[in-house]
């Protein structure tokens, strides 16, 4: 086999603040395919990595949340474009991660790309759908508009390592939030590779931060973090979800419970708007209108 070429392995790294650091802890863990074959070593993130990710997400929040909805849509669409170009890579990674045939993995990747497109189109529509003028009984203009909640920690689905991941991350950022996502513990590689796509999609650094490692170890400090505003428990089991929800109460994070949404198996279904609207706050602004002139009224 003289022409056999030794392939180049990829060193999988975290994606934090637009950069690709190793875990500050120096730890990695073995990631295997569904048959137990070694695929790669993934960074085993620490609490400090989680903290750094929150700092990055907070720093990115101002710019991302105030970017025009049109621009956010363009960038999300750009993610889909970039993914399309790296489709084969993700088909392979998803097939390995989830033990799928190549054709089934391809369907998952296609669905994932399409999901980015779906959310790309939502950025400049959600305010019209969930906001609007309120006809108050008085001389006031009154308008409700949705605004992003802030920094959202996402516990990504454990089984659906790519479609599930994108199905929970994309709506949060489409709405203008920034995200710290804990990848599927067992199958983190598609998530870590997604970081590479995001980095080349005009998405500002820090808008999405990807951590791999032990879900509980990372999720607990993030659920308790006082500078995190939202928590999506999609990939938390019932015990962990309860612990995280209790921790989240300390600063009243907006919590999206796992049972409140589709199970992992349903990520292929139409996503609806539930996730898109969950990490939105409604701001209502009042202003007097009054009349054109000082006609006043008599007593």
């Amino acid at each position, binding site marked *: 086999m003289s022409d056999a070429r030794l392939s180049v392995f990829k060193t999988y790294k975290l994606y934090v603040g637009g950069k690709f650091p190793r875990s500050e802890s120096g730890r990695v863990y073995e990631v295997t395919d569904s048959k137990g074959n070694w695929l790669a070593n993934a960074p085993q993130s620490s609490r400090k990595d989680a903290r750094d990710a929150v700092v990055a997400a907070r720093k990115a929040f101002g710019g991302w949340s105030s970017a025009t909805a049109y621009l956010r849509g363009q960038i999300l669409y750009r993610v889909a474009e970039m993914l399309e170009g790296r489709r084969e890579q993700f088909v392979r990674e998803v097939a390995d991660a989830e033990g799928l045939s190549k054709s089934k993995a391809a369907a998952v990747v296609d669905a994932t790309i399409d999901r980015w497109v779906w959310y790309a189109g939502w950025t400049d529509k959600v305010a019209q759908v969930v906001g609007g003028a309120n006809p108050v009984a008085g*001389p*006031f203009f009154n308008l409700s508009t949705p605004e992003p909640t802030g920094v959202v920690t996402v516990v990504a689905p454990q089984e659906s390592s790519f479609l599930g991941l994108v199905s929970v991350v994309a709506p949060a950022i489409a709405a203008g939030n920034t995200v710290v996502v804990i990848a599927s513990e067992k199958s983190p590689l598609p998530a870590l590779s997604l970081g590479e796509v995001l980095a080349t999609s005009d998405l500002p650094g820090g808008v999405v931060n990807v951590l791999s490692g032990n879900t509980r170890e990372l999720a607990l400090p993030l659920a308790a973090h006082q500078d995190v505003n939202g928590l999506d428990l999609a990939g938390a089991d019932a015990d962990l979800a309860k612990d995280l929800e209790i921790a989240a109460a300390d600063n009243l994070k907006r919590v999206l419970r796992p049972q409140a949404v589709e199970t992992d198996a349903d990520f292929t279904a139409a996503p609806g708007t539930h996730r898109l609207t969950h990490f939105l706050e409604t701001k209502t602004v009042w202003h*007097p*209108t*009054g*009349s*054109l*002139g*000082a*006609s*006043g*009224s*008599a*007593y």
Partner: protein
Amino acid sequence: MDAVGLEARAAALGTRSIKTSAKAYAIDLAISMIDLTTLEGADTAGKVRALGAKAVHPDPTDRTTPRTAAVCVYPDMVATAKQAVAGTDVKVASVATAFPAGRAALDVKLADVRDAVAAGADEIDMVIDRGAFLSGDFMKVYEEIVAVKEASGQARLKVIFETGELSTYDNIRRASWIGMLAGADFIKTSTGKVGVNATPANTLLMLEAVRDFRAQTGVQVGVKPAGGIRTSKDAIKFLVLVNETAGADWLDNHWFRFGASSLLNDLLMQRQKLATGRYSGPDYVTVD
């Protein structure tokens, strides 16, 4: 100015509930603040004499009734009015400066003023040049007031803005300051000759202006809402505006007036009701 906020404040003060002794006080005070007015083309010496008699003895059946502050007439009726109120403290006020439109040359306006003063007017009610104001020529408005003030001599000068024509609260506030800076002794809402005259909101705004002007300059200026105030209830609400905005220092007919005519009889009927406990009727007050 925020129109909604201003009107809401005026309306809120209108919900004050003035009862019993406070009401009796307010009714007498309101009577004493009236510039009892007749400004008709059909005014005659007889009409003006009757008005003067009414100002001096508003309620012939009750000599404890206060006199009105003044009678207010056209310049050619000043002499008649002076005779009618002679020997009392009732003042004679005269509109002037080509009232109500004010559309005349400055010389004509000044002549009008001098004529009234020469006839014995104690007070001059001038109108500002709304045309100049609305076209942005505030200097012209100011200078005209200064000239009229000079022509008025010892007579106190009331400056009428015709708030209904200035249209916005911002304009009314600006006019108030122009008037006060130019030397007005009173600022006055309206002529009574246009659609919108005194309202709680425009009066509140002018009360805020005189309050602020005194705070900044030490000079106290009076306020006169005119036109449209017809009931005791309304008059009392205006007094509440005075009390809670400019303050008690203005609760005196030297500093606050009502330009009104039919208001007086309603006040008199309310006064009789308080005295007797019975509701009065129009046959128990005089029609003059």
